[in-house]
């Protein structure tokens, strides 16, 4: 298992290297020069040239690339061209913000999606099944920004249940320790703030959760249906087990593998794909951070940001693969 993990990690290297190379060239293909962008349009050519030199952008591409790679190997993600801060430090709060959001979204998506899928499969062709699946379909058919605005309109403005946007009440800000606000408030024992944080999380998480929730519900349903047709389920029922037990013990564990795959893929997508949600809900997350970096042509930030998301993505999927082995004794990695 360990050696498998190590091997898998090693095999990620070419993928991440390829990704880095593609990002490297792609962002340089974007018209616009970081020096120019940083200085604004008012800058003179000499100033731009000087900054270009200072930023090392006048070097041949391979020098730049290997310089960057060299940094990566020592764990240095480089410096933001714009703020000149080390990306290692700068990126963390953004990453944490998005991770917290994505995590909550995923929890919601999994809890609701999996259960809806199970119940739908269990009562196949019942009204619940139809309603849940139609809702799931509408869920995947909904543009997320539209959903976000609607949520605000209903829950913040009309019902006044939830705050409109942001991560916290800025009037009484949270002392950050880990940048996971839920954790931070708990560490500090500030239950009042904890609830504020939770309230802020609700709407964006739901907006972000909609699509994975719908996908998970559909996948769960179809794999459950398939599993429930299998021989061992018939065996379990022939033993006189309760249907509930059969479904949640015997079927779910078998159905969970494809669901896990989807969860892995979706979590990755959530991390990078949260830009719209982050924009609508003023969430200071990594998606917007990178998006801004694209606008600023902040090469190292774009590069490292995308690389980090990709690393998280492949790590999650690696964990998912390892989870398979934990769930399914037939799968042995060695």
């Amino acid at each position: 298992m360990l050696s498998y993990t190590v091997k898998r990690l090693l095999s990620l290297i070419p993928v991440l290297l390829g990704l880095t190379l593609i990002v490297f060239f792609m962002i340089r293909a974007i018209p616009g020069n970081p020096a120019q962008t940083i200085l604004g349009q008012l800058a003179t050519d000499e100033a731009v040239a000087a900054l270009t030199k200072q930023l090392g952008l006048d070097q041949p591409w391979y020098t730049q690339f290997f310089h960057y790679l060299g940094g990566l190997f020592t764990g240095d993600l480089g410096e933001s061209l714009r703020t000149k801060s080390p990306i290692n430090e700068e990126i963390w709060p953004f990453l944490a913000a998005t991770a917290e959001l994505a995590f909550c979204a995923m929890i919601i998506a999994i809890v609701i999606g999996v259960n809806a899928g199970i119940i739908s499969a269990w009562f196949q062709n019942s009204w619940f099944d139809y309603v849940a699946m139609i809702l799931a379909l509408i869920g995947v058919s909904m543009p997320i920004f539209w959903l976000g605005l609607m949520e605000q309109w209903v829950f913040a403005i009309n019902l006044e249940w939830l705050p409109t946007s942001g991560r916290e009440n800025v009037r009484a800000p949270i002392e950050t320790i880990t940048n996971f606000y839920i954790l931070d408030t708990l560490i500090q024992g500030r239950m009042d703030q904890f609830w504020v944080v939770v309230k802020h999380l609700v709407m964006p998480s739901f907006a972000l959760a909609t699509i994975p929730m719908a996908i998970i519900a559909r996948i769960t349903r179809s794999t459950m249906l398939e599993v429930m047709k299998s021989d061992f389920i018939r065996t379990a029922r022939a033993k006189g087990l309760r249907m509930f037990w059969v479904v949640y013990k015997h079927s779910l564990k078998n159905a969970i593998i494809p669901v896990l795959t989807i969860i892995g893929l979706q979590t990755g997508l959530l991390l990078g794909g949260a830009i719209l949600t982050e924009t609508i809900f003023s969430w200071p997350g990594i998606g917007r951070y990178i998006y801004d970096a694209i606008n600023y042509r902040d090469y190292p930030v774009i590069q490292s940001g995308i690389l980090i998301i990709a690393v998280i993505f492949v790590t999650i999927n690696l964990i998912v693969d390892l989870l398979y082995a934990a769930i399914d004794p037939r799968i042995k990695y060695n």
Partner: protein
Amino acid sequence: MSEVLLKVDKLKKYFPITGGVLGRKVGEVKAVDDVSFFVNKGETLGLVGESGCGKSTTGRVLMRLLEPTEGTVEFEGQDLTKLKAEDMRRMRKEIQMVFQDPFASLNPRHTVEKILEEPLIVHGVKDKEERKRRVREMLEVVGLNSYHAKRYPHQFSGGQRQRIGIARALMTKPKLIIADEPVSALDVSIQSQVLNLLEDLQKEFQLTYIFIAHDLGVVKHISDRVGVMYLGRLVEITEADKLYEKPLHPYTKALLASIPIPDPDVQQEKELLKGDLPSPANPPLGCAFHTRCSACMEVCKTTRPELVEIEPSHFAACHLYNK
């Protein structure tokens, strides 16, 4: 009736077991391990053995659908294993195969006509009308109707599909047909239809069969000679009658004893085999059967017995007879 059509010598097929990311070989499955036999023209050689003992693999390696690891296959004096890919492809006109699963072996998206026509197309029958005519003829031969030509496989029952599979094998007028468990997926009453058909066709077209099966009754019925395989090895081979009347190898004996006889009066006390078939990835040393053999001797655990002619035209691989 003793002209040798096919001669297999020391045939081996090892499947690598790959592991790790780099796909390194970490072991091998000895699916076919040093098998030698011959098939005479016009006869039917039956191959029996338990599941996973390498029967299908043998059949496939013969046709080079799988590349043999070692050994030679001589067909009409020509070594198939040495042929170039293109020559081998042409050679397949002479050797055809009928598969076990009548559901999986027909392309679900082709009509019967297309399925039967394809062998002709690939072997260069250009005339469309000619092809159509021959398809129709062949359908009649295997007991189907020409109006079946336009239908798709899923519209047929298992027995009918197996007829289509047989028809396909016959389209190129082959000399040798390797039938890989052609009846084991069929019901009893249908099974006999197909067996009869195969026999009729053999007479009609002077075919030679290698008939793979695990049902000893079927093998006995259809075969002139029978080979018994165990764990990738041929343990016994002789004429069908001899084998069933006087099996030599302990495994063959046990196998025969295990068959349920459809007669309530024959309640013979059986000598049951202990244990299960070992894994071909990790076969026992010496005689592969020694772990389950009731007559196991010390030598069996260490030395692999050779297939030798113990009685005239009766070969067995067992130390009991190696005096």
